[in-house]
C-alpha cells in the first residue's frame, strides 16, 4: 500500500504521486515522516483528528497553514507549515543594487513598511560609514513612530476581530487611514512607501503632511482612549485573553522572542534602548514592561506603546533641525567590502539584518532577521492543551505578519 519504509521518498517524487491514490478522506495526506517529530505528530491517538487551519483562513494573519491535531475541542498538538508567501526576497536582493533592495524589502512587513525599508538602508550606511544628515534622521524617527502607531492600531483591530468583535477593527482602520493619508502626502504611497534612501530619505516634509499631522495629533490621544474603553474592561474580552498563552521569561528568552511579547513577559528589552541607533538616545520615552506574559498583558502593552510613540513624535517635531534630507552619494554606489549587522525596533520586535558586501554594487548576502518568525514559535509551545478558539487569541496577540515570516 505505501512505499517501503526503509526508503525515504518525497511526495514530490512523480512515482510516489502516481502511486498514491488521492482520496477525499484525507484532510492531511498520509506522509512518510522524515523526522522523529513528524512521526510523532502524524500518528493519531484515540479519538484525535487532524484539522487544517488552512492557508486560506480569515484569521491566520496572512497565509499560514497550521495542522492541528485535536481531540474534540482541545488541541493536542500542532504543526505550522510556512512558506506560502515566500517570495525569495533575500535572493532577489542579491541580484539588484543596494538601492533596489529598498523596494524589494518593502513588502516584508507590509503593515509598517518603513521599518523593512530601513534594513538595507541602515546596513549600507553602516558599511559605507556614512553620516546621515540630522534632519533626515529626525524625519526617519518621525515616520517610524507613525508607522508604529498605525501598526498597533491594526493589531488591536485584528485581536478583536479574531475574537469575534466586529467594531474595533474599523476604528483601527479609521486611525490608520488618517496616518496613512498623511504618509501618502509625504511619500507618495499609502502602503509600500519606498521612502528611505541610503543617506537619508526621499523628499522633505511638505505642507500637506505637516498640516495633516498637526490635525491628527490633536485628536489622537482621545481616539485611542475611546477605542480602549470598548475593549479594555469588556468582560468577555478579558475572560478570553487573561491568563491565556502565558510565556514566562525563560521561555521567551530561549525562543529569541522580541518586542511586545518579550516585554509583556517581564524582560525590559527594547532595541531603541539596548542598542541605540538614529536619534533615539536623545529622546525621552519609557519602555513599557509587564510581567504577566498573557495575551491581555500584550494587548495592554501595545496600547501603552502607542502613547509612548505619541510622546516621541511630539519631541521630534519640536527638535526638527534644518538641513538637507539626503547625503551626497555617487550615482553608482560601490559599497566597500565588509559585514554589518543592524537592528531596529519594529512594532513586532527586533528587526535585524546581516549584510555582507563584496565591494561591488550588489549585496553579496542580505540576511533578514524577522521578529514575527521568532515570535510565532511560541504558538507551538503555548497552544497544546487549549481549545481551538484559543489559538486565534494567542496568534493574534503575538502579532505575526506573514510577509516577514516567509520573506
Amino acid at each position, binding site marked *: 500500500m505505501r512505499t517501503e519504509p526503509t526508503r525515504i521518498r518525497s511526495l514530490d517524487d512523480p512515482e510516489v504521486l502516481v502511486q498514491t491514490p488521492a482520496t477525499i478522506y484525507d484532510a492531511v495526506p498520509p506522509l512518510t515522516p522524515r523526522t522523529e517529530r513528524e512521526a510523532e505528530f502524524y500518528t493519531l491517538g484515540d479519538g484525535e483528528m487532524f484539522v487544517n487551519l488552512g492557508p486560506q483562513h480569515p484569521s491566520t494573519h496572512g497565509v499560514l497553514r497550521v495542522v492541528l491535531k485535536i481531540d474534540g475541542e482541545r488541541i493536542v498538538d500542532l504543526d505550522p507549515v510556512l512558506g506560502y508567501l515566500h517570495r525569495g526576497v533575500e535572493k532577489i536582493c542579491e541580484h*539588484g543594487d543596494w538601492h533596489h533592495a529598498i523596494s524589494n524589502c518593502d513588502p516584508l512587513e507590509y503593515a509598517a513598511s518603513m521599518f523593512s525599508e530601513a534594513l538595507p538602508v541602515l546596513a549600507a550606511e553602516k558599511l559605507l560609514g556614512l553620516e546621515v544628515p540630522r534632519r533626515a534622521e529626525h524625519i526617519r524617527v518621525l515616520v517610524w513612530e507613525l508607522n508604529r502607531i498605525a501598526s498597533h492600531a491594526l493589531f488591536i483591530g485584528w485581536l478583536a476581530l479574531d475574537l469575534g468583535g466586529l467594531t474595533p477593527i474599523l476604528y483601527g482602520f479609521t486611525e490608520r487611514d488618517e496616518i496613512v493619508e498623511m504618509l501618502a502626502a509625504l511619500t*507618495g504611497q499609502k502602503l509600500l512607501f519606498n521612502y528611505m534612501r541610503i543617506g537619508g530619505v526621499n523628499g522633505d516634509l511638505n505642507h500637506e503632511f505637516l498640516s495633516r499631522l498637526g490635525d491628527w495629533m490633536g485628536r489622537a490621544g482621545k481616539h485611542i482612549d475611546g477605542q480602549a474603553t470598548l475593549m479594555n474592561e*469588556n468582560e468577555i474580552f478579558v475572560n478570553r485573553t487573561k491568563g491565556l498563552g502565558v510565556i514566562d521569561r525563560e521561555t521567551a528568552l530561549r525562543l529569541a522572542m522580541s518586542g511586545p511579547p518579550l516585554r509583556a513577559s517581564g524582560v525590559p528589552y527594547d532595541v531603541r534602548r539596548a542598542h541605540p541607533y538614529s536619534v533615539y538616545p536623545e529622546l525621552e520615552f519609557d519602555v513599557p514592561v509587564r510581567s504577566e506574559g498573557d495575551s491581555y498583558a500584550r494587548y495592554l502593552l501595545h496600547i501603552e506603546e502607542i502613547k509612548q510613540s505619541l510622546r516621541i513624535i511630539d519631541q521630534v517635531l519640536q527638535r526638527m533641525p534644518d538641513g538637507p534630507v539626503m547625503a551626497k552619494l555617487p550615482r553608482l554606489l560601490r559599497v566597500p567590502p565588509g559585514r554589518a549587522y543592524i537592528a531596529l525596533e519594529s512594532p513586532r520586535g527586533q528587526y535585524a539584518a546581516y549584510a555582507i558586501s563584496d565591494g561591488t554594487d550588489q549585496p553579496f548576502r542580505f540576511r533578514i532577521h524577522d521578529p514575527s518568525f521568532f515570535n510565532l514559535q511560541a504558538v507551538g509551545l503555548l497552544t497544546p492543551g487549549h481549545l481551538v478558539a484559543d489559538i486565534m487569541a494567542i496568534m493574534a496577540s503575538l502579532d505575526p505578519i506573514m510577509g516577514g515570516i516567509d520573506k
Partner: protein
Amino acid sequence: MRTDRVPGLALVKGMWFAFRQVLRPKVTVQYPEVLNDIAPRHRGRLILLYDEAGTLKCETCFQCAAACPIECIDMGGVDTRNRYHVHWGPAEQYAERREESAMRRSGRPVPDRTFDPFGSIDLAPLDAILAAEGYRPRRSLAILERTQEVYGHLPVAALQHVAHQTGAGYSELYGIASSYPHLRFEPPGSHVVRVCRCTQCALLGGGRVLAAFCEHLGTDVGGLSPDGAVRLETTDCHGESSGSPRVEVDGEILPRSSVEDAVRIAAALRANVPQGQAA
C-alpha cells in the same frame, strides 16, 4: 461605578460607546460621487505623465520593465518615425521569441508576421466611428470595440489614427486593448489551432499531436496553412489536465485529443467544415 465591581457594567458601557458612534459623522467616501483628495506626490496613478509642454515623459527605455522583479510590466510602442513596433513582455513571450529564433536558426521557414499590422488601411469607417463617439478619449474602449467590428482586428494604423484624433496616447490605447481578451491586434485566421507545449501535455503526447497537425495542415508552428484557412500556434500551460494534450480549435478546448483526432480535425478544417462542439 467601578466597572470591575458591577458585573456586566463594562459590557453596557461598551454598548453605549458603540451606540454613540452612530451619531458621529461617517468616514466613508462615497466614490464616485465624491473623490478623495490625492496628494500631489502620489505616485500610484497608472498613467503616463506629460510635462508642461505636453510631451510624453515616457521614452520607452524599458528600464522599468527590466528592473521589475516580478516582470509585471508589459510595454509596447511605436517609434516616432513609424519604423518599428517594439514589444517587451513577460517571460512567457520571451520563450516564444526564442523559439522563433531557434527555428530560424535551424533552417526551417518561419513566417515573419511582424510587419503585417503596419499596412495602411481605409480610415473612413474609423472616422465615422470617432465622430459618432465624439472624439472622447473616455470612450476609448467603445471606440476600440467598434473598430474591431469594422476591421476584424485592431490594426496599428487604426490605433495611431484614434490616438491622433482623440488625444489619447498610443500607449494608452495599446494598454487598454491588451487588457481585454476580446480585442486582438492581428487579423483572425478563419481557424486557429493551438496546442499546449507545457511539460505535462508533452508527457501526454503533445509533441506527436503537434507534429500531426504540422504535417496535415501543411504548415509549421506559427504559420498559416497553404490555403490560408488555418493557423497553427502553440500556447502555454493553462493548468488543466484532462488526460490528453490541451488542443484548442477556434477557442473551443477539445475534451480529448490524439494523433487520430489531429488528422481528422486538420482534414475537416482544411475542407472548411465548421467545427461545432467537439465530438
